[in-house]
């Protein structure tokens, strides 16, 4: 079909979304898009969901961290933001999400808000300082550590964890000074 004349084409805004999940979560674009639509439909209803027209146009997720660019109609950004906030799990994996920024073009959004790649730096057995549970800890670049304990994952930071027999949290903290 012939393209619409420019003044009749919908105007879009692009919400750049930061995503986070436990290390074992494997999240792909299709299920994420489905959850976004569900969330929009449940919160805004069919008419509101159609108005906001939330479409995932860019998606990247690996090793517990990801980002997406979600398109929303101009003037529907706040409703889109509300719907996105209600996405609490994808394929049964709990996800944390936050709108990092909104921009008028995909490229501007990517350049301004898609900086850090995330991913895990190293993996080792760590001990949680608070209750002494040990497990495999996967450390992210920003100092966050996801510890796999018998009762499930615990989100910690390198301040909370120590490697048994090697160091205590105070030693880990000291390395932050330089």
């Amino acid at each position, binding site marked *: 079909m012939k393209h619409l004349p420019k003044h009749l084409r919908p105007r879009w805004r692009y919400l750049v979304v930061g995503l*986070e*999940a*436990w290390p074992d979560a494997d999240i792909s674009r299709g299920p994420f898009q489905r959850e976004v639509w569900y969330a929009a439909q*449940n*919160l*805004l209803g069919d008419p509101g969901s159609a108005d906001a027209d939330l479409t995932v146009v860019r998606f990247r997720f690996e090793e517990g961290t990801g980002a997406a660019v979600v398109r929303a109609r101009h003037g529907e950004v*706040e*409703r889109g*933001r*509300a719907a*996105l*906030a*209600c996405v*609490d799990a994808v394929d049964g994996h*709990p*996800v*944390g*999400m*936050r*709108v990092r920024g909104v921009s008028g073009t995909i490229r501007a959004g990517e350049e301004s808000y898609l900086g850090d790649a995330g991913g895990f730096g190293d993996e080792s057995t760590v001990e*949680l300082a*608070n*209750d002494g549970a040990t497990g495999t800890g996967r450390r992210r670049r*920003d*100092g*966050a550590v996801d510890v796999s304990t018998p009762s*499930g*994952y*615990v*989100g*910690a*930071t390198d*301040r*909370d964890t120590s490697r048994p027999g090697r160091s205590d949290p105070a030693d880990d*903290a000291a390395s*932050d000074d330089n």
Partner: protein
Amino acid sequence: MTATHPGPYEAAYAHPDGDATAARLAQTARRYGYDGLVIRTREADVDAGALRERYDVDVVPAVEVVAGEPSSASGAVGNFRPDFPLVLVRGGTDALNRFAVEQDRIDVLAAPLSGEGGFNHVLAKAAATHGTRVEFDLGSALRESGGQRVRALKGLRKLREIVGYYDAPYVVSARPTSHLELRSPRELVAVGSQLGFEEAWLRAGLAEWGRLAARNRRRRSAEFISPGVRVDRCEEDDR
């Protein structure tokens, strides 16, 4: 942010009640734009000073008393009041809700509409008199679905009408149990707006945690005698 206009605070559950440690919650809260974080879990053993220095977030150790009936809640409140700047009581039954709003020493009635609990004009008036903040739980709007969510939203609306009419004090929280359940203040405001809340009203509710914490810290300091009376240094002229 100045002391009189604190920024948004969130009140979360830390490990072992939740799935993230206080430090991880503080780190995420800072990234999401919160000025402060209340830790509802007594067992979390929070080193607020260290976390504040490291993540630049005002971490407030608190206790959320979960009890079956007012008499046991009363004992717990008495035990924890001296040690924590914030004391919350989780509602859930009519008796507990009533008990919480009629006590000056309780700061927040948490989740008043959870379980069997109800809320009415009598409780709102008592909350206004005794200064107990009534919590608006946006968590069910974020994480529940279907009939449970509809019931929760219905409850929020009713609570808003009653609390608004009597001008009772309130706080707003999403009650996150991990860093993944945290949502930024802007997201909470966007969701709240869809539920019929006003933006300024929501932001005031998020900031109220910080105001409460600051007030209680002042009261716990050695200079405080009673409201309006405090020990001050001598003015130079008096010497």
